[in-house]
C-alpha cells in the first residue's frame, strides 16, 4: 500500500493522472447531482409529518457527512505528509480545508433553514449542531494557521500537526458536548427515529452523497493542480530573477 502511494506521490505522475480523472469526476458528479436533485425534489414523497421541508435533507445530510469525511481526509493527508514528507500530501491537506469548511457552512445553513419550520427556531444548542459548529471553528483555525506564515511550507507543516491534534480532540469534543447537552436540555426535540427510511427517499439521498463526494474530489484535484502550477511559476520566476 505504501509503495503504490509513493508511486503516485510523484507530482508529474499525479498531474497526468489527475488530468485524466478530473473530467470523469466532474461529469459523473454533475450527473449524480442532477439525478439526485430530480429524484429528491420532484419524485420522492413528502414526509407525512414534515411535509415538503423534508427535501432539505437531500442537501443537509450529505453536506454534514462531507464535513466529517473531509476532515478525516485532511487528517490522513497530514499524517502522510508528516511521516513520509510527501509535498503532494501537504498540498492535499491544505486544499481540503476550505472545501471542508464550505461543506460545514452548507450543513449549518441548511440545518438552520430546516430548523425554522420544524422546531420554530433558527438555532438550538443541540449536541449535533454544536459539534458541527465546533468543527467549523477547527477548520477556520487550520486555514488561519496555514496562511499565517510568510513561508508556505512552514504553514503546511504547522497545519499538519494541528489537523492531527484536532482529529484526536474531535471525538473528545463530541463526547463532552453530548454530555453537556444531556445535562442542560430536557428530552431533545430532534430525533430521527421512526420507521427506517424508505427506498424512494434513500435513493436520492445516496445519489446526492455520491455527487457531493465526486464534486469534492473534482474541486480538490483542480485546486491541487492550480497550486502545483503556482509553485512551478514561483520557482521559474525565482530562477529567472537569479539569472537576470
Amino acid at each position: 500500500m505504501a509503495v503504490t502511494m509513493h508511486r503516485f506521490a510523484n507530482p508529474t505522475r499525479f498531474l497526468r493522472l489527475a488530468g485524466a480523472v478530473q473530467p470523469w469526476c466532474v461529469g459523473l458528479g454533475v450527473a449524480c447531482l442532477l439525478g439526485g436533485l430530480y429524484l429528491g425534489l420532484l419524485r420522492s414523497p413528502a414526509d407525512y409529518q414534515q411535509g415538503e421541508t423534508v427535501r432539505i435533507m437531500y442537501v443537509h445530510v450529505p453536506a454534514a457527512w462531507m464535513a466529517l469525511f473531509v476532515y478525516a481526509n485532511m487528517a490522513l493527508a497530514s499524517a502522510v505528509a508528516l511521516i513520509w514528507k510527501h509535498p503532494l500530501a501537504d498540498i492535499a491537506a491544505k486544499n481540503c480545508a476550505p472545501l471542508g469548511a464550505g461543506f460545514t457552512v452548507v450543513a449549518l445553513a441548511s440545518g438552520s433553514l430546516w430548523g425554522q419550520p420544524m422546531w420554530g427556531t433558527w438555532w438550538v444548542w443541540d449536541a449535533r449542531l454544536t459539534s458541527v459548529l465546533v468543527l467549523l471553528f477547527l477548520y477556520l483555525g487550520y486555514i488561519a494557521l496555514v496562511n499565517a506564515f510568510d513561508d508556505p511550507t512552514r504553514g503546511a507543516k504547522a497545519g499538519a500537526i494541528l489537523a492531527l491534534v484536532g482529529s484526536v480532540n474531535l471525538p473528545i469534543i463530541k463526547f463532552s458536548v453530548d454530555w453537556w447537552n444531556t445535562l442542560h436540555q430536557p428530552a431533545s426535540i430532534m430525533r430521527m427515529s421512526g420507521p427506517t427510511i424508505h427506498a424512494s427517499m434513500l435513493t436520492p439521498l445516496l445519489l446526492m452523497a455520491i455527487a457531493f463526494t465526486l464534486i469534492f474530489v473534482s474541486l480538490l484535484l483542480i485546486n491541487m493542480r492550480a497550486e502545483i502550477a503556482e509553485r512551478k511559476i514561483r520557482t521559474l520566476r525565482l530562477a529567472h530573477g537569479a539569472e537576470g
Partner: protein
Amino acid sequence: MTAFAELCRRDLRLALRQGADAAMVIAFFVLTVVLFPFGVGPEPNILARIGPGVLWVTALLAAMLSLDRLFQSDLDDGSLEQLVLTPEPLSTMVLAKCLAHWLTTGLPLTLVAPMLALLLNMDGEGMLVLIGSLLLGTPVLSLLGAVGAALALGARRVGALVALLVLPLTIPVLIFGVAAVDAALADLSPRPHLLLLGALLLAALALCPWATAAALRQAVE
C-alpha cells in the same frame, strides 16, 4: 531531571522578575468577572446561576492572554534552539515550560477565583469544587495552549491566532469544569465531572508535550 527542574526554575525566575505578565493575567481575570454584574444586573440569584460559567470562561480567556510569551521570547534570543539541541527529550523540556507557565498563570487564577466566587454569590461547597476543578483544568489549558503557541511561532498576528487555534480544543475542559461546580451547587456529586477532568489532564500530559515538541522542531528548522 535536573535539566527539568533547572528550566522550570529559570522560567519562573524570568516570570517573577518581569512580574507584570502574571499580574496582568490576574488583573484581566478580576476585571472581566467584575464587569458581569454590570452587564446582567446585580440580582444575587442570576449571579449565582451564571457564576460558575462566568468564572470558567474568563479563566479560560485569561489563560490565553499569556500564551504568546511562552516560546516567543526564547525563539527571539535563540535559547529555543539550544533547548532543541539539548540531549534531554524535547517533550520533557516542554513539560517543564508548561509547569512554569501553569505556576505563573493557572495557579494564581485558581487562588483568586474563590474571592471572585464570593462576589458572584457562590456558597462554600461550590467554592471548594470550583478550586478543585480549576486545579485539574487549568494545567490542561497550559498544555493545550503550549501546542497552539508552538504552532503559531513566527506567524503574523500571533495573539489572535493562538486563541483561534486553542479555544475550540478547550471546550471539553470548560464543559466538565462548569458541570462539576453546577453539580455541587445542585447538591449532586461533582465526582464524575472531576474524574473526567482528571482523565483529560492525564491525556493532555501524555500527548500535548509530544505535539508541542514536534511543532517546536519545525519552528527552529
